[in-house]
């Protein structure tokens, strides 16, 4: 019996020691660890840029480790909210430029205004992107990269149809794509252009091309403007394009399922509209015959205004490693890294780094979502997708669907 007690006591002491040292070692690592949340795009597209930044950071900060955790666009904000509740936020977080406002307005991010000069090229940041990281005259984020939207197309089919030049107007584009469609009529399931109906990023290009907009402020209140005559003209142009060149079954589909490049890589379409990096995944069979041009406007000679999507890097206010976080961001957004991003089909964060790429040319005309605290609720509530599905399935007229969406947007944006 006595022996057993001794053994038990010894075990307890051993366990206690293990627990104590484990605690101590975790504590020590925590103190010298920088946690970074990036989107999976970096993991699949430019892991070398991440590795280069980490290496540079570790040289400047001996003994520090960087824990890069990759997140998905769909649920990263919900996860981030959970870390805020648990006082366990990352030290650096990548935010979509449309997601910034709600968090800046509620004080989730640290003020980086005084540190601005330490970020490379901060004097030449892309205006659109820099604006998305400012709130109340203060800087809460560092532009990371942007992306414009272009047409990715099968040059072999265009050539076969006798088209040798990129179209310079929307009407020309429709005629060209239809020509290819007629030529490929015999291919089962082939659509001249694969356009997922509820892809609001593409649809709103037309709204802005016709001089329309999503919402505007009037006497400190948001007013929906999708039902204005110019917006309705733009939406009608989108419907006409869809009816002329796309598949009816795509009227209620979104750009994620199936991804347009998947349909393209199966040889079922001649053209897709989307981010320039779509060229990544067009399939080995069509890699050599894939090319890109800027989607033309209905006004000949101009590009259509494209959604300037992009990301910023922010430091959550709860982070205990603010200066290290700022340093990592500076390393990550160095000129060299931004140029590598450009080589991979993105737009770098500063004008002095811009090269003459199809992506940069497309960015010459661009649009952005209203900078409102509740914009993110408009996106999550799928107000725009519902409107597009109603228009393309013929359930409602363009004017009716746009009026309903406009009212919903105003209601959502004006919430307290």
């Amino acid at each position: 019996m006595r022996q057993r007690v001794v053994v038990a006591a010894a075990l307890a002491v051993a366990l206690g020691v293990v627990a104590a040292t484990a605690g101590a070692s975790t504590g020590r690592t925590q103190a010298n660890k920088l946690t970074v949340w990036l989107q999976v795009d970096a993991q699949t597209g430019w892991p070398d840029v991440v590795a280069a930044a980490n290496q540079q950071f570790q040289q400047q900060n001996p003994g520090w480790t960087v824990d890069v955790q990759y997140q998905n666009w769909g649920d990263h904000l919900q996860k981030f909210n959970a870390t805020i509740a648990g006082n366990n936020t990352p030290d650096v977080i990548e935010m979509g430029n449309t997601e910034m406002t709600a968090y800046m307005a509620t004080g989730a991010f640290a003020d980086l205004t005084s540190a601005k000069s330490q970020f490379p090229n901060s004097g030449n940041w892309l205006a659109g992107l820099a604006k998305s990281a400012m709130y109340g005259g203060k800087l809460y984020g560092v532009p990371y990269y942007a992306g414009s939207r272009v047409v990715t197309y099968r040059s072999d089919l265009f050539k076969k149809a006798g088209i040798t030049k990129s179209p310079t107007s929307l009407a020309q584009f429709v005629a060209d794509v239809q020509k290819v469609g007629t030529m490929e009529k015999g291919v089962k399931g082939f659509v001249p252009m694969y356009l997922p109906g509820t892809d609001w990023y593409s649809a709103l290009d037309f709204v802005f091309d016709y001089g329309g907009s999503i919402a505007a402020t009037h006497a400190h209140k948001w007013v929906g403007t999708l039902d204005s005559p110019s917006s309705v003209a733009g939406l009608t142009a989108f419907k006409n394009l869809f009816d002329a060149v796309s598949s009816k079954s795509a009227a209620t589909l979104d750009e994620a399922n199936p991804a347009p490049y998947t349909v393209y890589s199966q040889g079922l379409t001649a053209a897709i509209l989307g981010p320039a990096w779509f060229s990544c995944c067009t399939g080995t069979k069509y890699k050599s015959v894939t090319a890109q041009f800027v989607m033309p406007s209905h006004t000949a000679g101009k590009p259509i205004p494209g959604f300037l999507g992009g990301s910023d890097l922010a430091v959550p206010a709860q982070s205990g490693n603010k200066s290290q976080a700022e340093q990592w961001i500076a390393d990550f957004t160095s000129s060299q890294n931004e140029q590598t991003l450009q080589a991979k089909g993105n737009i770098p964060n500063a004008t002095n780094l811009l090269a003459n790429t199809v992506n940069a040319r497309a960015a010459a005309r661009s649009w952005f979502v209203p900078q409102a605290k509740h914009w993110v609720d408009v996106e999550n509530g799928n107000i725009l997708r519902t409107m597009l599905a109603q228009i393309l399935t013929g359930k409602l007229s363009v004017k009716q669907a746009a009026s309903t969406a406009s009212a919903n947007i105003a209601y959502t944006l004006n919430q307290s």
Partner: protein
Amino acid sequence: MATAAGTTTKWSRRRSLTWRSVGRGSVPYLLVAPVVAVMGAILGYPIYSLVRISLERYGLFELIQHKGVYIGVKNFGSVLHDSVFWHTLLRTIVFAAANVGLTMVIGTLIALLLVKVSGWVRLLVTAGLVLVWSMPPVVAVQVWNWMTNSENGVLNYILTELHLGNYFQHNWYTTPFSQLTMVTTLIVWGAIPFVTITVYAALSQVPRELIEAAEIDGARSWRVFLDVTVPVITPVLLILTSLSILWDFGVFTQPYLLIGQPHITTGNYLMGIYLFEQGYVSANFGRGAAISILMLVIVAAMSVVYVRRMIRIGDVT
């Protein structure tokens, strides 16, 4: 005299409360105490927290401050005055009724079939059912997505090849009704194994001699089923139905993933999704808490039947 008798009774009662008897009497409570404590910690605190947050304005700003602002029952008021809540509740009730009905009918029919078939067929069917049961909902959603994809889904291909109509590039998810119908097929498919296996177990408890006696008395098989089999398996059917109602009322994973976030709108909300969208996606945690309390009340009211039946079964045995 009366007083004396009263005193005696009082005294004897007091006397019976010795330390030993107290100790003996409290043993059951002591044995239950750890469970109560654990349940209290696991369920009690979260429920207290939930109620507290439901009475507060608790959005992103409050989350960052770690402090909500007390606003009384305003969250409940705004939810109950929201037409989306009532539409969603009605839709969820119809959806749950359809799912439970289909699950119970098909599940019971397969169980009855299992009784009739030969041993190896039964083994084969049971193995198939267990495989279905063991598939995680997220994986099942992927399989469904793959089969019903409008661009290259195998369902469209087979239906077209069988000349059952032209389903080439047919989109199965165009309206809220069609979306929820697809979700129903997935949920019923996943729920049938549990019902079938449990009903089959119950059917094996029906005394053979009762059936034989009824048959000798000239009862037809339908009458035998109604008068002999059904009364024996009724408790099991009732419990299965009650459980299915609870599960299908609060279902989240299958509709959320199969319909997909980009297509979730107020037109196809179910209660579980409504709660998630309002509470988490819109970061309005106070309102989300109020919705979940309302759901808790509705589910509790529905489970009264289940609990009463359980208690009655407990009394009989």
